């Protein structure tokens, strides 16, 4: 017998009404009498379902509707229409039982008390979520070990680095062992080492606890390391819902290689190394197929051109999505 999905979304819509402000006195006057209300469809008929224990990536350009969808799934935002079910609850009802099993970590919005050590916020959450002493100790010890933060949980949050803060935010959110976890840009602004630690942690946590996790990120590496399945949302609609491997094979075939030159170069001089995506005489970006990156860089380094710096970036989500539309 197939079990019921832990998250079910059917025909979800969110429309915002706003008053269009146009410049000029004439329009200000007009608005006084009759404000023209415009509609923006942030989420337009989105449907999907998620099984318990899945670790899913939510991708999409800024303003695509992915954060709006997450907010409706968590109970922050009221849907305009459609059905949302998470763990059998309607999130917008904001029932206590729902909140007790749910957690949302938002990259920029901290829940830790700024002037106190993280430990105090942990203890507060223990009380809020009614976590038993044993569970608390067990969860805390395990996560502190995995994230390697033993030395800092008793330092004031404002004295911690961004990476340390983020790790503690994660711990605070997971102390009550939620069944469903949303992570909104969890590695934003972090250094490479911290990013990796957090990724490893999320992966292990999901595997061991079977927590259902939805992750949004602008970093392809986050998604690549963690998610088997991804959902791409653009312009309020689901553009892709399937396995990441399939998507990568199909669309994210390139890396972005940016070369900084000591002396100015011409398009003609560098054009032979690859497809130019951005050009300035001292800085050129190329779109290079993943497998060719090594060769391409080797070729440039052994040429006569004097290289100041090289950057290799993942093809960003925007261009992957652009590819999806243009191909």
């Amino acid at each position, binding site marked *: 017998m197939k079990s019921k999905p832990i998250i079910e979304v059917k025909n979800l819509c969110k429309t915002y009404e706003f008053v269009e402000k146009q410049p000029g006195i004439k329009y200000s006057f007009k608005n006084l009498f009759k404000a023209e209300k415009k509609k923006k469809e942030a989420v337009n008929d989105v449907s999907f379902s998620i099984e318990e224990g899945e670790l899913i990536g939510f991708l999409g350009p800024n303003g695509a509707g992915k954060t709006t969808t997450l907010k409706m799934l968590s109970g922050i935002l009221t849907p305009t229409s459609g059905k949302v079910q998470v763990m059998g609850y309607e999130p917008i009802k904001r029932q206590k039982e729902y909140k007790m099993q749910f957690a949302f970590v938002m990259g920029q919005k901290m829940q830790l008390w700024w*002037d106190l050590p993280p430990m105090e916020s942990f203890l507060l959450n*223990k009380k*809020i979520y009614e976590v038993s002493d044993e569970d608390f100790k067990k969860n805390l010890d395990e996560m502190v070990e995995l994230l390697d933060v033993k030395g800092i949980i008793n330092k004031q949050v404002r004295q911690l680095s961004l990476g340390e803060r983020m790790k503690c935010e994660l711990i605070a959110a997971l102390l009550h062992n939620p069944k469903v976890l949303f992570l909104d840009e969890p590695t934003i602004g972090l250094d490479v080492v911290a990013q990796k630690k957090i990724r490893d942690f999320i992966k292990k946590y999901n595997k061991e606890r079977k927590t259902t996790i939805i992750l949004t990120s602008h970093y392809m590496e986050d998604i690549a390391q963690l998610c088997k399945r991804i959902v791409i949302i653009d312009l309020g609609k689901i553009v892709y819902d399937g396995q990441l491997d399939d998507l990568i094979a199909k669309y994210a075939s390139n890396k972005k290689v940016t070369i900084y030159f000591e002396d100015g170069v011409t398009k003609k001089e560098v054009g032979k190394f690859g497809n130019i995506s951005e050009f300035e005489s001292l800085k050129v970006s190329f779109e290079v197929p993943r497998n060719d990156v090594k060769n391409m860089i080797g070729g440039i380094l052994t040429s006569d051109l004097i290289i100041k710096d090289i950057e290799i970036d993942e093809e960003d989500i925007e261009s992957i999505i652009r590819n999806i539309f243009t191909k």
Partner: protein
Amino acid sequence: MGKYLAVISNSIKKNLAYRANTFILMISVLFSFGVLFYFWNSIYMQGNKVGTYTLSEIISYYIFITIFELLFTSTNTAWSIGDEIRNGQITNSILKPMGYFEYKFSQSLGVIFYRMMLFVPVIALVLFLLRNYLTQPKDDYGYLFFIILSFLAFILNYIIYYIVGISSFWVVDNNGFFFTCLVVISFMQGQWMPLDLLPTWFVTLGNYLPFKYLFFVPVGVVSGRSAFEYSMLIIPLLWCVSLYFLAKFLYKKGIKKYEGYGV
């Protein structure tokens, strides 16, 4: 219940974290009491008078007003709610199984306990030094009534500033609006001058508002200026109840509006 105690405790700890502040604060409080005394003393010594107040009465009035200001006000509640709405922190509170009103109340209680720890010694010293200038309550149980009235005043104070803070859902420039509210409320609670010295029409207006119960009425009882009446308990209680429902209603409406932009 334990979660609210934990909030109170964290709130106290958070304020304690700023220890350097503490010492300076205590000195400045001592100083402000001193200024108060010498100011009014010199005014009266020169033969001036404030309305129907004797020197002792006016000194008692301002001493107790200052005590109230130090111990029983929750203006910080309004500011912190305003901040949390503006920077989106309140989203976290929506997602937690804890009432926002109750959460902020617990935080406020923490601040009050902290302030009491800090200022009670200083206040006790001041009351001792100025004991000859302080007037007594009229009633036998005056001090007991005072404690009950203060308790009510604190709750009413909290609810009012909670509502002011919640206004941030609608008012974008809440700095200006807050300041205006603070100024009006502090005037109407008797912080600047005794309310019974104001013109009759103003006093009548004040009777229909909750503010005089925040400072003026309790101070009047403990300084012996007014005799205790049971209406002094019932009316603020009614205000507490009705404003409580207003607060909850406004919060609901505010969150709805918040969904539209701030989240």
